[in-house]
């Protein structure tokens, strides 16, 4: 086999390894939130918005992988999510705001939407967009601190709806470089616990 062929084979193997490891990360997140009464609303689905068209090869490989959770008994008005964002594949100028910066590195982002007095209706969740909340915001660093964001002020969200359903909703979110998420303990201590604690306190 020629060296170039081997390089392509290695690249494909590496992509598949990345997919398997990301799946392990998200399944671990599933089990950690489940202990606290949350369950996924998306079954085993973890990605959407990808292309199978010959005219859109950029869209063949996902840019993000997500899990959305609800806890209808304790928090009927909260939508929790954990997601891995690998890149900004279309260089979409809607995120980061203004398109001035590119996503510099793959991140793990997580957060929760507070629907106020409303209860969450599962099919109203835009699976491919909601988990980009942190990503849509300018000037945020990937240091794991929780920030409060207003979806109604975020261009990409407000473009998605004309019925004002995002008005008065609140998003609290964090992000960390993907390579810093080394094991189950890190997911629990730096991602899940801080968000659930924040939810209780707020």
């Amino acid at each position: 086999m020629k060296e170039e062929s081997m390089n392509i084979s290695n690249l494909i193997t590496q992509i598949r390894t990345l997919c398997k490891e990301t799946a392990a990360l998200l399944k671990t997140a599933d089990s950690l939130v489940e202990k606290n009464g949350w369950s996924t609303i998306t079954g085993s689905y973890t990605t959407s918005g990808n292309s199978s068209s010959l005219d859109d090869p950029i869209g063949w490989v996902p840019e993000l992988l997500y899990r959305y959770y609800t806890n209808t008994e304790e928090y009927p008005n909260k939508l929790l999510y954990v997601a891995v964002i690998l890149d900004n594949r279309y260089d979409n100028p809607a995120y980061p705001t203004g398109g001035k910066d590119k996503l510099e590195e793959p991140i793990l982002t997580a957060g929760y939407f507070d629907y106020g007095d409303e209860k969450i209706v599962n099919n109203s969740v835009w699976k491919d967009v909601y988990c980009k909340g942190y990503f849509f915001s300018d000037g945020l660093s990937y240091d794991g601190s929780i920030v409060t964001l207003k979806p109604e002020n975020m261009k990409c969200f407000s473009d998605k709806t004309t019925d004002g359903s995002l008005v008065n909703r609140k998003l609290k979110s964090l992000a960390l470089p993907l390579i810093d998420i080394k094991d189950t303990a890190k997911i629990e201590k730096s991602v899940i616990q801080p968000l659930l604690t924040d939810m209780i306190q707020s």
Partner: protein
Amino acid sequence: MLDALLHGKLSQKQENMEDILTSFVFGMIKYLPAKDALFPFLAKSESQFGNRPLNFLLHETDTTKVDYEFWPRLEEKKCKPCEPDVLITITQQEPKGSKIFILVEAKYRSEKSSYSDESEKPNDQLAKEWSNLKQKSENQNATPYLVYLTADFGFPIEQINKSQQELEDKGRSKGEIYWLSWRHFPSTEKSGIVKDISKAIHNKLGLKLYEGISVPSVVPITWKFTKTTISRPFKWSLNPVEKVKWSFNSK
């Protein structure tokens, strides 16, 4: 079996069969000193809240006697019969001298084989197995533990809670039911059977816990497709078609 799995000689269907996996793992480690593989593995069994009640196994000595019974049929009084995967009997030496039953119900890609029903006796697979194990332990003055061995990344809350619920609903006390994952099988750098089993479980079957994202060294691809110009137009040679000689008659 181990070599067949490591060298990819088993079909996908065979690799997915939990009985084969159970037989392969426990069938191998029964020939090893329990402190090398069995005890470190079972010690990772945990409760919903992360407690590890079998941690004491790590302190057992070589004189502890361990017996394995594969797919035993249990049919105690006031219990529906069942056939769990492995019954491990641990007999501690004097002065402790106590007997411990650890019943392992192993799953790989499937869930429980039976669920709660309206009958008087527990019917859910784990509830049924726990009822039998408890009765058997009382008869033989042993301490019972039921280990639900799965491929999950975390405690399968719903599955175990449903079993516990059926026990409670049918007037029985909650079971000592703990969870263990194939992913917990101990890794070792020491060569030998444990390393080979570990390789088969973690690498071949991909049953490992999340250990971070491996950072690949990407080699730049140096080739690319180039656009070629077709030098002459396509020439289609078609077979001649006979003229149609029939026609519809008017009625």
